[in-house]
């Protein structure tokens, strides 16, 4: 091969590349479902504020909306990781329940004893560990045993909820012992917006960076795109998928602790039905249920959209029992949109 052709070729390729990169960036922005969902959220908030300035457009309502969707948003980040690999985790709501009860029970024991073991310093890590265990259980069954994620996590949904009921002996836990006040101040506290909202913002940025700039993030997308190919090219598929399920359950545990801090009581029904809202948020934000596509910001705005609509319906005086219809309708709409976009691509 003549030696002078290679560098010439390379420079052409690079100039090609820079032109294309800018194009795809704008293209990607406009093709991104997350962007349009953001527009929708802002639009609804703007219109509602104009229509109901005294009830909707208040600082207090903004505080409520953001706090309400922060828990779902945190869980949706974990769900995004799992769905990008082409899986699903139906157990997040129940994991939330059992984590809430574990943390509540440990701190409740601090009512009669001032042992360090019963402070939130121990209760919170124990709650997170419970989450990790649930994720490990899901992950092992899905990756090592090869069960379908749907069925596995459906099983975990039932198991974890039962565990929560048994552990709590079907009682509500509302006395959080000697470290309770500090726990509420930290996890249920606020600085302009609720602390859980700050946590969601930090986690969204962090997870977006992980997805877009790390090998782990790249591998999540690769597994969702073509798991067999990823395996053949040396991607540690089993490990990465396992970690995705653990991360998902861990997010549910974090959300449970923040929710506990705000509500100040633990009931074994905590998080019932949340899996639907979490999956809806993820899908509305543009994460493809077939895997290989999705992002952290999408999970954030997806959760925001559901809450903004829910909140708007309540303030507009619509019976709250209609919520389920709207949430379900939006899931179907989001998947339909995905189908249309997918067709355009082919």
């Amino acid at each position, binding site marked *: 091969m003549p030696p002078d052709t290679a560098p010439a070729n*390379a420079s*052409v*390729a690079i100039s090609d590349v820079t032109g294309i990169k800018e194009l795809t960036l704008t293209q990607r922005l406009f093709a991104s479902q997350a962007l349009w969902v953001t527009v929708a959220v802002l639009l609804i908030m703007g219109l509602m504020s104009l229509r109901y300035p005294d009830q909707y457009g208040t600082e207090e309502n903004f505080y409520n909306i953001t706090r309400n969707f922060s828990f779902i948003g945190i869980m949706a980040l974990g769900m995004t990781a799992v769905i990008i690999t082409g899986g699903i985790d139906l157990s997040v709501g129940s994991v939330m329940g059992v984590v809430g009860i574990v943390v509540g029970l440990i701190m409740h024991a601090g009512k009669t004893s001032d042992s360090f073991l019963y402070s939130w310093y121990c209760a919170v890590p124990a709650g997170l560990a419970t989450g990790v265990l649930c994720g490990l259980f899901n992950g092992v069954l899905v990756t090592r045993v090869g069960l379908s994620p749907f069925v596995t996590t459906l099983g975990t949904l039932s198991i974890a909820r039962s565990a929560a009921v048994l552990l709590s002996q079907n009682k509500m836990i509302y006395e959080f012992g000697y470290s309770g006040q500090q726990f509420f101040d930290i996890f249920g506290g606020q600085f302009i917006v609720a602390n859980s909202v700050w946590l969601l913002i930090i986690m969204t940025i962090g997870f977006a960076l992980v997805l877009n700039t790390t*090998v782990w993030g790249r591998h999540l997308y690769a597994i969702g795109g073509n798991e067999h190919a990823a395996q053949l090219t040396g*991607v540690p598929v089993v490990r990465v998928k396992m970690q995705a399920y653990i991360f998902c359950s861990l997010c549910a545990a974090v959300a449970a602790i923040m929710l506990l801090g705000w509500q100040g009581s633990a009931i074994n029904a905590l998080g019932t039905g949340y899996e639907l809202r979490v999956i809806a948020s993820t899908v509305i934000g543009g994460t493809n249920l077939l895997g290989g596509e999705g992002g952290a910001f999408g999970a954030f705005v997806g959760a925001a959209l559901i809450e903004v609509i829910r909140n708007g319906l309540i303030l507009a005086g619509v019976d709250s029992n209609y919520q389920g219809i709207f949430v379900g309708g939006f899931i179907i709409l989001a998947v339909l949109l995905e189908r249309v976009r997918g067709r355009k691509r082919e």
Partner: protein
Amino acid sequence: MSVLQLRNISKSFGAIRALTDVNLTLEPGEVLGLMGDNGAGKSTLVKIMAGNFPPTTGDIMLEDGPVVFHQPVEARRKGIEIVYQDLALCNNLSAAANVFLGREIKRRFGPFNILDFRAMYEQAGQLFGELKSETRPHDLVRRMSGGQRQAVAISRTRLSNPKVVLLDEPTAAISVRQVAEVLDLIRRLRDQGICVVLISHRMPDVFSVCDRVFVLRRGRKVAEKPIADSSPEEVTGLITGAIHAA
């Protein structure tokens, strides 16, 4: 000195005997056409060389002695790369991301290890350039033609400075113009001193790029000879069994 040698390779899957006492030698810089009918054992033989599974009996010899592979990664470390028939590409990732899949270039960013996008795009661009392919590193594989996809899959094998590249039916599902492109890619690999094994059904492809032809029938070697000493008619006869052995 041969690059790769298979000695008395046999492989059984339960009661099914896929390969019986196959011997194969690869010389440096040659293109070997591996031919045979469906079920003749081509894929099994290739998968043994690529490390997907070990043979039931027999040895694989590299320049520096015998080896045993249990995973494709092990064969890759020894300089044997494979391009699978389905190419093993992720449609949702860019060309560069696919080339470096599982072997990403990283750089330090504070306490973190992050992807070195620029290095990967540049290096992928160079590899595509060397193969004289029009493939662009930023393009999504989903939007690519069959020939471009082949270029991505073949570029992947060039990352490790391989000694042997195995191509499993690279021309089976693409257009005529793209077939010519892929055959050119094979010649470029050979020009760089890489030994290529081309598994193919297509007689014209094998006779235009290969130096030697190796024919399997029912798991046994029936011929291994220079392409110049053979003819498409003879090879067809060998594949179908009309000619017993050559």
